[in-house]
């Protein structure tokens, strides 16, 4: 709650005035039955026509003033709800953008997106309705009771009884249906999932002839949903009829009680009519109140979920101070791994253990190994995606952890395994918001990445739109563009994480040649499954299960290293083997 209040604080005026104005509107509404009572008991009883007309003008004035108050209140409520939610959304997005990979993964992409979109929408709706109704509805319900008190003290007891009975009924219905509703939600998700899964796996399901099983499983899920819906329906079908009965029986009691009071001259007829009217007003407001409660019930967990993300530490990584000036000596190697070990937060076995590696400037390192051998991890530690668990990684003699994110992104060009492009033009994608990247640099990078003909082939060239999920580019084209994106900033260190897998052998070779010929001579790391991609590197590291099982040049490894031999010969069968 405190979390929400801190956002409403900036709209204090609106948040207070909205309910207050709604309350004023309610007051005017509550006055109507009294005016009507006066018309009956004075106007009609005395046959005073001008009094009747005066009172009716009063009614119209009450309506107009009520309208003005209501409209103002709606505006304030909408403004407070929408702007505070907008601020929350922005803050949340910024927080997510600052997250480290570990924090991000602990929540998951889809969870984070739902927090920002649907959860905050729920909160916005909840706040809006709350500001509008939380004073109005209870105020009318209680106000009707107070008005009854003004008319007749004893009649108030009837109101108290009715309101108490209503409260019990509404509470009981809510309490017994809410858990069923969350069950219904879960079962709906299951149905959604089942449909998607069956479309995705249509070929496999049909190949194995499992249609009947799938159909039966779906029938079960729909039956379970149906059962829950009927269960919830049984209870909620009672809500309207029961509240109706309570209020109308209340009216019967008022009429009976009123008649005895009229008989004794304690009440006028018009006042009995007013009491009946107050009772009817309660019924109308009560339904609104019940809807409000349902809405709030949905919004409150959303607040909790948003807060959970906001309170999650965005970045658990360590940033050390820059070491004393001069330690980044000119002679220091480009990259040094010193006895580096790494464990993923949820992994028990180390993904990388006791790795040491020195890479001199302008050289090329190939990294090869099977699935899950730790190749990508090795590079991810270099650009400080994670903290090393043990040991140290130095770039130009300085600990990786002493660089800021901006410094590292200038220093290192990364081509991730998954070739992701963003919505926008090709130029936007290659530039990635970097002001210092000129068109000339872009073109040079595109040529080196073998992407120049990809761009030239597009109708709009550099201004060609990249559609959602880059559907208008093939896998190989995407990879070349992501390589160009990394090259455009002319980084000192270039990391290629299996980023040529979709390229044919000739393009792959041309790409490696172009990178070797780059004028600014970056230090290059190449990860690959293909022996052909790494065999001309200056140094090759062979990884298996997170351990470096050998390193050297292609020739020495092929002579001495068993794992490398196995990999190599699985791709290049020995001559005359067959």
């Amino acid at each position, binding site marked *: 709650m405190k979390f929400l209040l801190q956002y409403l604080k900036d709209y204090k005026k609106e948040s207070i005035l909205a309910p207050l104005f709604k309350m004023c*509107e309610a007051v005017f509404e509550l006055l109507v039955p009294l005016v009507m009572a006066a*018309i*009956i008991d004075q106007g009609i009883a005395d046959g005073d*026509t001008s009094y009747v007309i005066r009172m009716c003008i009063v009614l119209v004035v009450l*309506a107009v003033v009520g*309208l003005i108050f*209501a409209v103002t209140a*709606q505006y304030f409520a909408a403004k407070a709800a*929408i702007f505070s939610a*907008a601020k929350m959304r*922005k803050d949340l*997005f*910024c927080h997510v953008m600052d997250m480290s*990979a570990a924090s*991000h993964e602990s929540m998951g992409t889809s969870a984070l*997106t739902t927090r920002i979109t649907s959860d905050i929408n729920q909160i916005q709706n909840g706040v809006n309705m709350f500001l509008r109704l939380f004073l109005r509805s209870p105020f009318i319900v209680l106000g009707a009771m107070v008005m009854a008190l003004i008319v007749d003290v004893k009649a108030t007891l009837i109101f108290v009884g009715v309101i108490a009975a209503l409260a019990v009924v509404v509470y009981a219905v809510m309490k017994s249906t809410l858990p069923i509703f969350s069950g219904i939600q879960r079962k709906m998700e299951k*149905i*959604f999932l089942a*449909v*998607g899964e069956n479309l*995705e796996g249509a070929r496999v*399901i*049909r*190949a*194995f002839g499992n249609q009947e099983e*799938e*159909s039966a499983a*779906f029938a079960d899920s*729909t039956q379970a949903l*149906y059962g829950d819906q*009927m269960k919830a*329906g049984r209870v909620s079908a009672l809500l309207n*009829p029961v509240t*109706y*009965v309570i209020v*109308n029986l209340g*009216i019967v009691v008022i*009429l*009976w009680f009123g*008649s005895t009071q009229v*008989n004794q001259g304690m009440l006028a*007829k018009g006042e009995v009519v007013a009491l*009946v009217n107050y009772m*009817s007003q309660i019924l109308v407001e009560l339904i609104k109140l019940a809807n409000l409660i349902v809405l709030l019930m949905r919004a409150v967990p959303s607040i909790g979920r948003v807060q959970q993300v906001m309170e999650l530490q965005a970045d658990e990584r360590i940033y050390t101070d820059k070491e004393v000036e001069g330690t980044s000596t000119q002679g220091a190697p480009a990259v040094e791994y010193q006895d580096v070990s790494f464990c993923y937060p949820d992994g028990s076995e180390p993904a990388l253990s006791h790795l040491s590696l020195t890479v001199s400037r302008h050289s090329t390192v190939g990294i090869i190994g099977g699935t*899950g051998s730790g190749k990508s991890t090795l590079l991810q530690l270099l650009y400080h*995606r994670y903290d090393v668990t043990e040991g140290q990684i130095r770039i130009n003699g300085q600990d990786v952890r002493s660089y800021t994110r901006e410094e590292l*992104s200038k220093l290192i060009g990364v081509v*991730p395994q998954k070739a992701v492009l963003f*919505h926008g033009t090709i130029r936007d994608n290659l530039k990635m918001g970097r002001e210092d990247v000129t068109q000339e640099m872009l073109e040079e990078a595109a040529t080196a990445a073998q992407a120049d003909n990809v761009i030239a082939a597009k109708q709009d060239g550099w201004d060609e739109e990249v559609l959602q999920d880059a559907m208008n580019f093939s896998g190989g084209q995407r990879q070349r563009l992501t390589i160009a994106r990394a090259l455009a*900033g002319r980084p000192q260190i270039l990391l290629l994480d299996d980023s040529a897998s979709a390229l044919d052998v000739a393009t792959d070779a041309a790409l490696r040649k172009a990178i070797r010929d780059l004028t600014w001579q970056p230090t290059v790391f190449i990860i690959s*499954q293909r022996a052909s991609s790494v*065999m*001309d590197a200056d140094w090759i590291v062979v990884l298996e299960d997170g351990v470096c099982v050998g390193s050297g040049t292609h020739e020495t490894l092929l002579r001495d290293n068993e*794992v490398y031999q*196995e*990999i190599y010969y*699985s*791709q*290049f*069968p020995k001559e005359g083997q067959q």
Partner: protein
Amino acid sequence: MEKNKTSRQTEVIKRVLVELRPYGKHMLASLVCAVFTVWFTLLIPVLTGQAIDCMVGSGDIRVDALVMILKRMAVVVAGTFFFQWAMNRINNYITYHITRDMRRKAFDQMLVMPIREIDSHSHGDYMSRIATDADVFSDGLLMGFTQLFTGVLTIFGTVFFMVRLSLPIALVVIILTPVSLLVAKFVASRTYAMFQLQAKHRGVQTAYADEMIANQQVVSVFSYNEKAKEVFGELNDQLADSSLKATFYSSLTNPSTRFVNSLIYSGVGVAGALLAIAGGITVGGLTSFLGYASQYSKPFNEISGVVTELQNAIACAARIFEIIDAEPVEENDTNRLEDVKGQITFEDVAFSYEPSKPLIEHLNLRVMPGQRIAIVGPTGSGKTTLINLLMRFYDTTGGRILIDGVDIRTVPRTNLREQFGMVLQETWLKEGTIRQNLLFANPNATEQEMIRAAKTSHAHEFIKRLPKGYDTYIKGDDGNLSQGEKQLLCITRLMLALPPMLILDEATSSIDTRTEMKIQAAFATMMEGRTTFVVAHRLSTIREADVILYMQNGKVMEQGNHEELLQMNGYYAKLYRSQFALEK
């Protein structure tokens, strides 16, 4: 155009009626309940007025009459309770039943719908049809229907009761009615445009957030974070602006209709009071009138919402019926395949996905039982299409395919597919435990058989390392399993149910070459005596095939074994050399 739309709507409505027919009795019962509910509800103000009239003044109360009236009120209230409750229950029954049945029908249809349909439609669209549209349809239809019905009944009932009480005052109300409608319409039309704008802005923002969050690591690597925040901020301001307008305008509905209602109420008040002074109506009569007037605009509000809701429901219904009423694929069961040897013949087969672009033409092929056929060629050459045709995911447009001399179009699809075991490049696993997935094809396999299969496929080692071993729960798009591990699971799944013929379409593409070498032995045993089709990139897998088909543009360019093709010195030889003569 407009006419077309209406006639399509009429068609859908007719179709909906067919769906509703089994519930005819329920609908009728619901309508009867609605009539009684409305009638009883409208009786209350009359009875209240009569009760007031029993109170003439101090010391002058007609007690007997009053008691009678109050008793009647109690009975009417009890009646309302019963009918309203019964109506709610019946409506729930109809709604939930129809939704459930429509979902099942659509789902079953989906299971037999031509693969062509599934391939060419967005899956998200089908998902929302079966999950969301079914709900909107039944909710909208029923709510819309009952609200429309009770709304109209209430309006006519109210007017009827008012005219009976006093014609002049009733006229005041009737004359003021259009004002109420106009106001509601005015607000609704303004709001609609605002909501559309809001929906648009929201869509853009969601897409942006989704893109940036999903690819946050790339964003981070390029230090694009601050820029992303800036863009998001702009989109956010835009959204806040349109949201404010939409929310504010839509929130005018209630106060403004309440205002109109107050005007009607005042009108009734002044007309009634003046008439009462003239002796034309009793105070009780006036009370009844005020009771009606205070609730008069409610049915109008409801009805104005109902029309859009019904239209929406019909649109949803049309979308679901498109699935349910799709032409079922024809089944021909003149023959059955039994004890298949695995002789496969393609006779002058032709096929195309689009009639204007012929893909496969005059394809002839003879495969002897137990042979291994490797299919190679550039992307788009028709390798996967061949498999689609064999499994009858698609049917040939010309010629025929025979298995053991039987035309595959003369056997039921399930019977045909039973004869093939398949591993595809795109791994598909169910959400469930590893065990459930492995036993997918053969639920009767024992634990030992399962573990043995996993060991042969080298999946056992990584399964063992998972938190709960074989009971680890995996989700379809689980990031915890690598693509290669998923392929190993698919291979294990196949090993537990081995039909006479196999199809391996890039089955090991994501498995590293060393592991692949290790499971070669397992593959060899698996393929022993089984006619096998292999699509692969890696020539090492292909060399050992009995027949290699080199395909290009839907045609088999070369056919023969490795040595023969090398000697032919054509496409295959060229491909082979480009892969092996690297960097020499």
